[in-house]
């Protein structure tokens, strides 16, 4: 009799302990399949690495971390659905993600309403963090990226006449094209023509022929790598020999895989280069290779890792997972040593850092 009471008590204690150590649920959404899958998959690998490390070190606030991921299949509308699911069914304490800005713009208003902090991984459109006080990001924004690209085109490529190809239904592409146009013109260059395409288009010969005949020195393509690779192939076929470059949405292994020889000598801007000698970056690359069979991470993976670590750090500083203190802790992050640089969250909830342009 007394033995069974003891057992029951032990079970109760176990149950209580189990309750206290409920895992901290964190959601990540992204494109893990479809035409933007390279971004989501890279970011997820970085995030998983961060979770593994934190859990191996005993978790955060004595609780394990649980990652819930959801795939938006590169489809419009899906990110909003996932945000609703995270908020109402999974009750996550925070959300990581959003690579293409259009995804973050869908999810942000819903998470803002639910008062769940969101850290966008590589959404660079300025409007993303304007969505509300709970929305942050760890990457640079397009006014910065566009200025860097314009400076690069003007000073490194010595371009005088530039042509732009942008995607007409992609807010990232439209936004960064405008910044590039303004900054390139201000630096004494001339935008000869801007041509548009739709998401998922595969034939760009018409736009490229028109740009080539307008006499452009360089072509800036402001949308994703799937279109970018085909643009490089078709531009070379049409005999355009000048440099072609893109923004951070070009950074994916598929750019080279699809584009082949045609993307040699093409440029894109990136959030961080694996060639960086910063100890945090080298450390991250070493751990990433060990975790993912020797694969070299790209900057999106590094941003995913940084977003997760910044969130863990904020939870530690807040001492709780309650929404308002956590939001406050993220907002006051200063000089956080991330793989992509020292991150400070400014008053507009954006990260301040620097950008690199490899070829």
């Amino acid at each position, binding site marked *: 009799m007394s033995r069974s009471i003891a057992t029951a008590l032990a079970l109760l204690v176990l149950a209580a302990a189990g309750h206290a150590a409920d895992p901290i649920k964190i959601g990540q959404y992204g494109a893990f399949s479809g035409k933007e899958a390279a971004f989501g998959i890279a970011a997820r690998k970085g995030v998983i690495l961060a979770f593994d490390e934190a859990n191996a070190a005993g978790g955060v606030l004595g609780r394990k971390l649980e990652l819930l991921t959801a795939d938006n299949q*590169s489809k419009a509308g899906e990110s909003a659905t996932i945000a609703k699911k995270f908020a109402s069914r999974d009750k996550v304490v925070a959300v990581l993600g959003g690579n293409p800005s259009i995804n973050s713009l869908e999810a942000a208003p819903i998470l803002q309403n639910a008062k769940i902090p969101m850290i966008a991984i590589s959404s660079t459109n300025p409007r993303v963090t304007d969505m509300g006080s709970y929305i942050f990001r760890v990457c640079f924004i397009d006014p910065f990226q566009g200025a860097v690209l314009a400076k690069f085109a003007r000073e490194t490529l010595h371009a005088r006449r530039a042509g732009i190809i942008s995607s007409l239904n992609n807010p990232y592409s439209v936004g960064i094209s405008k910044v590039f146009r303004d900054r390139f013109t201000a630096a004494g260059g001339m935008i000869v023509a801007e*041509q548009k395409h739709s998401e998922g288009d595969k*034939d760009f010969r*018409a736009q490229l022929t028109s740009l080539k*005949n307008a006499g452009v020195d360089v072509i800036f393509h402001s949308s994703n790598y799937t279109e970018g690779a*085909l643009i490089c192939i078709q531009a070379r*076929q049409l005999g355009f020999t000048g440099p072609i470059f893109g923004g951070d949405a070009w950074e994916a292994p598929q750019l080279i895989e699809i584009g082949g020889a045609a993307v040699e000598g093409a440029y894109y801007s990136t959030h961080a280069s694996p060639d960086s000698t910063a100890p945090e970056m080298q450390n991250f690359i070493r751990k990433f290779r060990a975790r993912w069979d020797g694969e070299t991470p790209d900057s999106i993976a590094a941003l995913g890792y940084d977003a997760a670590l910044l969130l863990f750090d904020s939870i530690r500083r807040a001492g709780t997972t309650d929404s308002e203190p956590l939001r406050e802790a993220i907002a006051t992050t200063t000089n956080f040593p991330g793989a992509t640089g020292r991150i400070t969250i400014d008053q507009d909830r954006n990260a301040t850092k620097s950008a690199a342009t490899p070829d």
Partner: protein
Amino acid sequence: MSEFLQQLLNGLSLGAIYALIALGYTMVYGVLRFINFAHADVFMVGAFIGYYMGKLVPENTIWGGLVVLLVAMIGCALLGMLIERLAYRPLRGAATLNVLITAIGVSLLLQYSGQVFFGATPRTFPAVFPSVNFALGNLVISSNQVVVIVVTALLMVGLQLIVYRTRIGTAMRAVSLNPKAAQLVGINNDIVISFTFGLGSALAAAGGILYALNYPSIDPLMGVMPGLKAFVAAVLGGIGNIPGAALGGLLLGIVETFVNGSQWSTYKDAIAFAILIIILLFRPAGLLGKVSAEKV
């Protein structure tokens, strides 16, 4: 002037692909009077068969490319006949709307099974045919574009010959005119219809391979947009009419290219489709279609 000619060439090669897909739509419509919406997804399956076959043959050889093309065409012909047998034959004699809805169902089935089996991530199509660029003064055209135009022209002529010069073609036209009467004179309708689907699907496979050679990034939803455009091209040319499909495809490709290359590229699809609406307002049966009175 050279820009005009270059854009015309670009438009021609884009239009030839629309035309090639449109041929399949129009042929099935010509015999069965229904739009096989799954056609564009058979086109996708053709590209994927080419993708897997392309890994087995040496790259950049003409015979390797032809083997890939042939296997994809045979594979898709079988798939087309299977779809007809399983999905459309049980509905023979049912209302047209039922068959149409079934066709949309088959289309979705192929797209999403494709996502399960092939994955939703775009794949890089191997360079199965050798590719070179020809330059004529300022004009540039790649051998792949030439292949598309030539193959489309050959297939159109071949199809026209099959339909108008062979026994099976005569049987196809007989079934189209009156299925019951055709049966009475000893034509096996099932075989004729099965053949029509096989032929149409083989065309779709050829289209898929040629498309993938030109735009080497393939995914299970790749058929949706070209399929829609080709369907419009078939209607524009006069659905059921083989030269009409080719004409419609070329016209659509050229208009789209010229709008794309102009300063109004933002409105590209809007302008291209507005022109189509205007043409159809004046010629409701399409450019080469015949207006036929229907008994009610």
